[in-house]
């Protein structure tokens, strides 16, 4: 049976709609619908309190003021650990993150270019300080008591590590995200160096 012009037009329209739908889903990245901050996305311009400890100020490369953003730091790459004092996984991972810090600190080719900070989500200053003292954490830790930063980065599981690298405008963007503990500090550092081109 020969199709009428109306039937042909309907078939063409239906086919076109399906093709457009297919193309839409094919080119839309999954991360566009996920809430977690993903690769290439800019790190939110959050202000953090500048520590009073001159050693930590020196580490951050920020000498003056009461607050700073990551852009104020001198380093090319920043590893941001999202942790929670109450999270047993974070507690187990703390010695490994310390090892990562020691590894970087001992590398003259890296220690000015790569810095590590931690953000304690849902934790008060007291809790972050308790965590710091419990594990002798030498890098700066900050409290995110009201979960503001946690919300901005997409409610990631703890611990999670955002590896941030500066773009052409010197703004920090996510190079990659690592959820959970890392295999070994050496392997993780190697991955950071490779993926950030350090």
């Amino acid at each position, binding site marked *: 049976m020969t199709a009428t012009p109306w039937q042909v037009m309907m078939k063409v329209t239906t086919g076109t709609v399906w*093709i457009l739908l297919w193309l839409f889903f094919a080119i839309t990245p999954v991360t566009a619908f996920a809430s977690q901050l993903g690769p290439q996305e800019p790190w939110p311009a959050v202000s953090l309190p500048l520590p009073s400890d001159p050693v930590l100020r020196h580490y951050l490369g920020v000498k003056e003021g009461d607050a700073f953003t990551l852009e104020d730091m001198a380093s090319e790459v920043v590893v941001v650990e999202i942790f929670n004092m109450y999270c047993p996984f974070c507690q187990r991972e703390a010695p490994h993150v310390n090892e990562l810090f020691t590894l970087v600190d001992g590398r003259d080719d890296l220690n000015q270019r790569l810095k590590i900070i931690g953000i304690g989500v849902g934790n008060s200053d007291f809790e972050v300080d308790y965590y710091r003292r419990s594990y002798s954490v030498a890098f700066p830790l900050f409290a995110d008591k009201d979960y503001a930063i946690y919300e901005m980065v997409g409610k990631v599981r703890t611990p999670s590590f955002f590896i941030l690298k500066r773009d052409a405008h010197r703004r920090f963007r996510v190079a990659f995200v690592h959820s959970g503990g890392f295999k070994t500090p050496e392997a993780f550092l190697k991955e950071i160096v490779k993926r950030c081109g350090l």
Partner: protein
Amino acid sequence: MLMKKTPDIKRWSVVFLVFWVLLPGWVWGASLAFEGQIFDPGPLKPRDSELKVHVGDRAPDFELAAIDGSRVRLSDFRGRRNVVLSFIPAAWTPVCSDQWPGYNLAQSLFKSHNTVLLGISVDNRATLFAWTRQMGDLWFPVLSDFWPHGAVAAKFGVLRSDGMAERALIFIDTHGVISGIHVSDINQRPHLELIAEQLERLSGKK
């Protein structure tokens, strides 16, 4: 040609759509692996009970079974140690699951104030065993207030109408007298400094 190709496009589109819809679920599921084991009841009425004890009262005595089967009696600590009772609403729920791991890290805080911590839940011992295994080795006993259901929580006035307990901290000095009570919003974890302040008060440092 068109009549033949359209069904193929439809079929492949359906396959792709199913894949596309399932993929994010897998990605989010992987990123929430720990939380995936936790039952989330959603926001609950912040408080649903009326206290039956007050600061200055002698704490009602009780005896409960710990996970390992041993019996723990509150009055056994009288004259020797301060006691903090940490009532939690239920095992396998979001806030409770990271409250005691935090107290696990704070062992030195309790010990430095000559204080023992007793975790209490209305769940049975089997449930508490499975749940606390995820927290590592807890240094404090976890007691089951399962049967008669929530009897100890009821004595203190922290048993909710749905059979769960409040998220409550009861501070008891070496004389067995209640020196502090904190019943939190059940949806929120109390901060550690609250405990630190109460412990300082208990040991006479504040």
